[in-house]
């Protein structure tokens, strides 16, 4: 009898551990990778974990984590946006241009957020109501934004940015604002995804859109809203990107969309939709930033970063497939 009870209890507790791991496994793995990386590289090159370098890593990459939050929501709902890099480039240019043209700084911060939401809502309408696959819509949008930006600005530098505009260089309690943005927005989004009815419907739509529709979830309207929220995060990311240096180059940061999508996918968001968390995507964004920086400290060519990212994508997608297979 007592043996039986013990067995039951043990199996229940392994059940709990297994469940927790099944839900947050990816997050734990990435967190472990980050810790291992900082300790290992820190031992080889102590300056890697100096406050200056940590600041550089976070300030220079927080905007990727912020953009990956919106991207994760889009991917969890079963869609994708490959135009986000171009969008951030355009929004950063709009923001900087407004700032140097004498508009109030709050307007230079707010305008890109609103424009971003308008653009992604438009994408959402084409995806949800016109039923064009999101990869097609956003490939088109990528070309339009990128081409338009280069044609209008010729890739010129925007200089003489007013100091009070450079929000990414502000500090609170000694910690740079991009870190605060990254942490606060990730926490907010994570709670939004987990505890609100809307967050739940994002997972339902991505997990089985037909079932969601039959259950009375307004799939089209929700999809447009998800894209609009994604635009909101892209807008904030653009402002953080625009204000991290004293100048803005009005072009599209190379491969930015891939980095953002990679952060989501490696963070545990299933490319097939329906599962994943924004905590995972933020951790993955931090991991990439740390890998990039460590390559410099280890005197390895920065080109390896892309190869490492690629390997991580493949490994994660394989893990995702295995997990899907188990769920059935």
């Amino acid at each position, binding site marked *: 009898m007592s043996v039986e009870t013990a067995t039951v209890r043990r199996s229940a507790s392994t059940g709990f551990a297994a469940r927790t791991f099944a839900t947050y496994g990816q997050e734990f793995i990435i967190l472990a990778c980050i810790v291992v990386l900082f300790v290992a590289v820190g031992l080889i090159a102590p300056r890697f974990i100096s406050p200056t370098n940590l600041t550089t890593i976070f300030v220079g990459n927080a905007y990727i984590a912020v953009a990956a939050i919106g991207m994760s929501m889009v991917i969890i709902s079963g869609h994708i946006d490959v135009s986000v890099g171009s969008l951030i480039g355009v929004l950063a240019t709009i923001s900087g241009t407004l700032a140097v043209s004498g508009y109030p700084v709050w307007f230079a911060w707010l305008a890109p957020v609103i424009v971003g939401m308008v653009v992604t809502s438009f994408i959402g309408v084409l995806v949800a109501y016109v039923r064009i696959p999101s990869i097609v819509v956003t490939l088109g949008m990528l070309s339009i934004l990128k081409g338009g930006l280069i044609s209008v600005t010729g890739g010129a530098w925007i200089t003489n940015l007013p100091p009070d505009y450079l929000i990414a260089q502000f500090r609170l309690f000694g910690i740079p604002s991009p870190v605060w943005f990254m942490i606060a927005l990730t926490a907010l989004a994570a709670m939004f995804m987990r505890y*609100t009815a809307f967050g*739940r419907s994002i997972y*339902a739509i991505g997990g*089985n859109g037909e079932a969601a529709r039959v259950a*009375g979830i307004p799939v089209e309207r929700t999809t447009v809203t998800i894209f609009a929220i994604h635009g909101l995060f892209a807008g904030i990311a653009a402002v953080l990107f625009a204000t991290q240096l004293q100048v803005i180059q009005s072009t599209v940061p190379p491969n930015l969309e891939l980095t953002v999508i990679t952060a989501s996918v490696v963070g545990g968001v299933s490319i097939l939709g329906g599962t994943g968390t924004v905590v995972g995507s933020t951790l993955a964004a931090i991991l990439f930033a740390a890998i990039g920086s460590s390559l410099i400290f280890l005197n390895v060519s920065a080109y390896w970063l892309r190869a490492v990212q690629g390997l991580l994508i493949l490994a994660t997608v394989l893990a995702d497939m295995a997990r899907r297979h188990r769920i059935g």
Partner: protein
Amino acid sequence: MTATPATSSETPPPLVELRNTSKTFGGIKVLKNVGFDVRPGEVHALLGENGAGKSTLIKILSGFHTPDEGGEIRVNGRPVSFSSPRDARKAGIATVYQELLLFPDMTVAENIFIGHAPRAGMGALDWNEMRRRARALLDDLDSHDLDVDARVGGLSVANRQRVEIAKALSQDARLLIMDEPTASLADADVRRLLDVVRRLRERGVAIIYISHRMPEIFALADRVTVLRDGSLIGTKDIEEVDDASLVSMMVGRSIDQLFPKVVVPIGAPVLELRKVSFKDEVQDISLTLRAGEILGIAGLVGSGRTELALTIFGITPATSGEILLNGRPVTIRSPQQARDLGIAYVPEDRGLQGLVKPQTIRENVSMALLDRISKGSIVDRVKESALARDAIARFGIRARGPEQRAGQLSGGNQQKVVLAKWVSTNPRVLIMDEPTRGIDVGAKSEIHALMCKLAGEGLAVIMISSELPEVLGMSDRIMVMNGGRMVRTFDRSEATPDVVGAAMTHAGASHAGGAA
């Protein structure tokens, strides 16, 4: 157990034979010691309800499944074993499935010769030879009007089917298995197909013909085999049987024992339909559904049963007619409106429309009432968990707990989760489309008991089912549909397998508009 058909001396030996064949999936025996044979140049009809084991049997013959230990497949009297569909094809067995397996962007000729195209040397395809042989095959099938260079995606269902048949013949098939070939054909195409089948028979091809349509079976078949619940009921010459005896062979069990129907008092009308139509799929349906009543809707696949459910639930909103709920006219243009009016729909395909498999039981159960258990827009997790635990207890869902992912449950338990999701919304009308399809016998009777209990609580239930015993056993009233129309309604007392089965199959031949 094995009823080997008597082989008289003048009949030729069987082309293909199954002996003592069983098949077990996950501990459930879906085919039990079946013996079956086909002779050259005969049309052998295979009959049985959904889940009787027909598909399993043909999948064993076509090499998709291997039979359990002890079974044997013989081709021309020699034992063989198929480890893949390719082996079966090499032995001359070809199958034309309901969902045709063609490449829409390739031409007719390419599709016919996919995988075994004639070669010109150096590995290049011999296009002229391929087109010439495709033409000859299609002419053989009396399809002179079908262009070998046409893209298959642009063809009608009937023409695509001919391409499939030509493809089978191009591989020298001696046995052709046809799985409900006329299910989606118009009348004229059905007649042409029957001619094609007769031609093939004259050329000595053996044909296994699966269909629910009685007139076709009597027009074509030489012999007929009936399966029920995975067992062989019998193989008969077509002259020995008639409609009634075939239906009772298919259905033939004591219905009252299997379906412990609890008769509950019937209350006031809840849902009324007045001449409701959706395009030409649902035509002029009028019905009254009362509290505590289970209305069974019977009909063949494509008779408009599911379409009617989708129309009531607002997925394909009615194009004309009136729907009344508790005596008041309502407009239902979306599932959301239907849900808010107290209508619930447990869909036909739980994988497709019912369940979000990566989500937990808790998340699935609360999906249709998230706004009701949310304060502001925050989901009340305490209420939600309580709901899920209640559902697990009330519906007897066998799971580790509310946090288990729905996709990990067995079919019957998945169905209970979908049912729980909808019952949790406290509906007044519950529509269940094929509530027990693809789940095992034990889970089936649990679902049936739940239906009775819900009806006893005053819920008005519409049950759509392809299984005649289920319809007969569970319903207070039975409505038979055909061609989108209501053909007849029966009270529980007057409904017998024979009359309901006849209403389902017979009216189908004529498409008569004689609505009751």
